[in-house]
């Protein structure tokens, strides 16, 4: 049959792209270059979702993050004078604390991956797979189904939170409504 697409080669390629993008985001002084590096990282992340056989999440990732949020980011960044921003002193100088925090987080990830409790590793051995054609339907029924739907409350709370943020933004931006 067909060779599987989710080969280690693609994983390392996408992961390397993501890390390179992430490093560029924080090292570039020009904010637009940073934003474009972030877009690259987000697209690579969509690729990783595809490798996990989650095409729906990958599609939403592209639409929302790369196509929606990043456009708004760029919209705002473009209004800033880049020349002035480049010359400005970077106000965050806490390299040491940053490195310690990042190291701690990395250590935590490794710990989760290696710790065993009662002979079983904490990290799940396999992942839940759905057939490619049922992936979207499976997400839908996890969210909304009467029997199997366990995340409906969380989902609605999250959307309520976003609504509150939207209304708050409008109230703060508009003097007279």
């Amino acid at each position, binding site marked *: 049959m067909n060779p599987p697409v989710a080969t280690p080669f693609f994983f390392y390629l996408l992961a390397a792209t993501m890390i390179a993008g992430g490093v560029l985001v924080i090292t570039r002084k020009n904010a637009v270059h940073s934003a*474009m590096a972030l877009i690259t990282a987000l697209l690579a992340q969509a690729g990783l979702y595809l490798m996990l056989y989650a095409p729906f999440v990958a599609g939403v990732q592209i*639409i929302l993050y790369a196509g929606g949020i990043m456009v708004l980011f760029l919209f705002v960044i473009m209004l800033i004078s880049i020349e002035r921003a480049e010359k400005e002193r970077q106000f965050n100088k806490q390299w040491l604390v940053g490195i310690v925090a990042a190291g701690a987080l990395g250590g935590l990830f490794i710990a989760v991956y290696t710790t065993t409790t009662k002979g079983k590793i904490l990290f799940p051995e396999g992942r839940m797979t759905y057939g490619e054609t049922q992936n979207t339907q499976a997400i839908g029924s996890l969210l909304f189904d009467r029997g199997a739907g366990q995340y409906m409350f969380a989902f609605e709370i999250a959307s309520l939170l976003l609504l509150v943020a939207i209304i708050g933004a409008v109230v703060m931006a508009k003097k007279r409504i």
Partner: protein
Amino acid sequence: MHGFLQYIQSYLDSDKTPGGAGNIFWATVYILLVFAGLSVAVIAMNWLERKILAHMQVRLGPMRVGPHGLLQPIADAIKLLLKEDIIPAEADALVFWIAPFIVVLAAFTVFVVVPFGPTHAITDMNIGILFMLGVSSLSVLGIVTAGWASNSHYPLIGALRSSAQMVSYEVAMGLAVVSVILMTSLGPEGGTLSMIGIVQAQLAQGEWFIFKFFPLGLVGFFIFAIAMVAETNRAPFDLPEAESELTAGFHTEYSGFRWSLFFLAEYSAMIAVSSIAVTLWLGGWLRPFPNALAGPTWDLVFSLFPGITFLLLAVMCFYNTARMPKHPLFRVQTIGLAGFGVVLGLIGLILFIPAVRVRVTDIYWFAAKVGAFMYLYIWYRGTFPRYRFDQLMKVGWKVLLPTGLVLLILTALVGMRTELWAELQGVWRP
């Protein structure tokens, strides 16, 4: 060698798309065919737009290069390729260089899932329509970065306008698309996001989704039809490149080959969104009346259309050959036009061969519907004055978005009416 031939042959016997069958050879062939077809379509659109707009304004349009200006697009292409390629001194060279490629990549990648027929697509994805919307929304990034990297005022304003406009209209567009996806879930096979699946749902439910739950399908189609013009930055929503205000908007500083990439991307994006509209509302590759006029006789009648179309085009060519001026200076052009007519006629005759006919009918009907949209685009441009920016935002957020939301709720209610009714009766009479 024999194994390779068998590999090629094995796909022809299957009833899947090349991507679905995992056949790399045929996938490559399809990709090249789609790319070539798109390029030809863009060239044809360039000529047709100028000619049709001219005739709408009682002008002749291009007449000098070739008979009736037929060679004008080729002359233009050569001019663009030979032009000096300028990068402004103050521009951000790297971003300036990348931006046209982002736009072109986004515009062409979406064609991976466009279904020209039940098996005539490069591949069929489970998230087809989501993929199309997502990747086509990436082209905004190219436009925005192009405007910013030029480091000049008009392009920057054009880029700001286009990002605001495209993000706003994407919302209304998405709502219209979701109402169609709700409609697909009413069929026997359940809901689907796959482009091929959506067309098959229309076949199974016996009607195009534009007529489903009249007038709900029609309203959704109108929302999409308006939003798609805004998404592709075409008149009357061409504010990002409004030539009377911003010279050329976001691509003011671009010249030569890079400018032609923007041109190519704009037209292929128009074809892409039109094919979304055709797939979602107008039955994709389905010929008219696939259920009411079923049977081998009607199949035969409808499969003759592609050949007849090309023969008609050939007849038009011959008619105009006869009308060419009889001056010796026009001899080459007259012979050329007659030759073009002969080529079109031969293509028409080839399309009558049964083996070809069967495979081409789907593509013909799909292309015909997309062609109707392309004509509409030109018609809009010849008819409507440009919107002002606040009017544009008002239409997007205050008209299309609420209509889309109401449409979505109504579609869900009408689609689930029997279940809802049963539920209500259960509540009232325990």
